[in-house]
């Protein structure tokens, strides 16, 4: 069930973040994100804090999943690239090795050609990283960490404001 253990690994996430930063600066993009196929944000490089990364991750994953469904219906293996063109901002989405989704947001200060070129190089650089990560799958990181969670710990997750709703 746990086929993406490697993503939990702090070291790998840090390496992915460095690569994302590099991609962002080389391509002149406004922001770059890596998302897993279930809609969870893995890491991002963005100086613009206005981006709602959680919502972007959920919508992009939905978008990729729907496109993937469409590909299968048409007998295609996959549609690996999606591109959305806006008036000011554009979004380039690519599914990398069917493992993670790369999102690049950019504006008129750069070009689609440059984005595509840099994304291609980024994907090549990522190949080794992802393959090695797969090979070196570590033991599960959360071994034992959550074993002694008590009902009380779980109860405390919910603020006191919810308590008026009581138990059903």
């Amino acid at each position, binding site marked *: *069930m*746990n086929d*993406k253990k490697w*993503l*939990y*690994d*702090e070291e790998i*996430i*840090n390496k992915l973040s460095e690569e994302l930063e590099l991609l962002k600066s080389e391509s002149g993009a406004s922001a770059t994100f890596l998302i*897993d*196929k*279930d*809609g*969870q944000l*893995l*890491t991002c490089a963005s100086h613009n804090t206005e981006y*709602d990364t*959680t*919502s972007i991750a*959920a*919508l992009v994953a*939905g978008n990729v*999943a*729907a496109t993937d*469904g469409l590909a299968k219906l048409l007998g295609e293996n996959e549609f690996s690239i999606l591109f959305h063109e806006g008036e000011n901002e554009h979004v380039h989405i690519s599914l990398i090795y069917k493992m993670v989704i790369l999102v690049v947001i950019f504006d008129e200060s750069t070009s689609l050609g440059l984005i595509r070129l840099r994304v291609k190089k980024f994907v090549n650089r990522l190949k080794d990283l992802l393959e090695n990560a797969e090979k070196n799958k570590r033991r599960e*990181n*959360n071994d034992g*960490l*959550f*074993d002694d*969670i008590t*009902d009380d*710990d*779980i109860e*405390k*997750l*919910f*603020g006191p*404001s*919810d308590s008026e*709703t*009581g*138990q*059903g």
Partner: protein
Amino acid sequence: MSFINYSTKEINCKIVYYGPGLCGKTTNLRYIYEKTDEKSKGKMISLATESERTLFFDFMPLKLGEIKGFKVRFHLYTVPGQVFYNASRKLILKGADGIVFVADSQIERMDANLDSFDNLRDNLEEHGYNLDNIPLVLQYNKRDLPDLIPVSELEQALNYRNVQYFEASALTGKGVFPTLKGIAKEVIKKLKG
């Protein structure tokens, strides 16, 4: 499949509200959204038709407290309930950590509840999950209306696993948070392995 990020110390879990068309899945999420503190919630996104029927999904991120120093976040999703949207419904289930099955308590909706429950089982199986062991709670919704199916009958028809169930009226909010708490507990228990 919960996502534990060790670099940001976050646990993200995906909860899916499932059930027949018009059973109140979106209404559950809307109530949670309205009653949750600004600091604890993100934007609620509804991909709906012009007539406000869910077309793809509703989505809402919810921040809870901390557990073992990890910030716990729940991503709540609903599926489109209408039968012909099954392809989209299946996509939303991918990566789900827990399911809230929302049943419509009105007598005439019993068949729809059963069909949807069977459909849930089939769609989970296609993703390699098993309805017999995935974290699950049941919500018997619309208990404020007349002509209801008795809870005992709903229990017999749907609750073969003997999981927690909640009587609710999502429109007024009754039972909405207890349901959410119920599934949150089940999902976190599963983290323990």
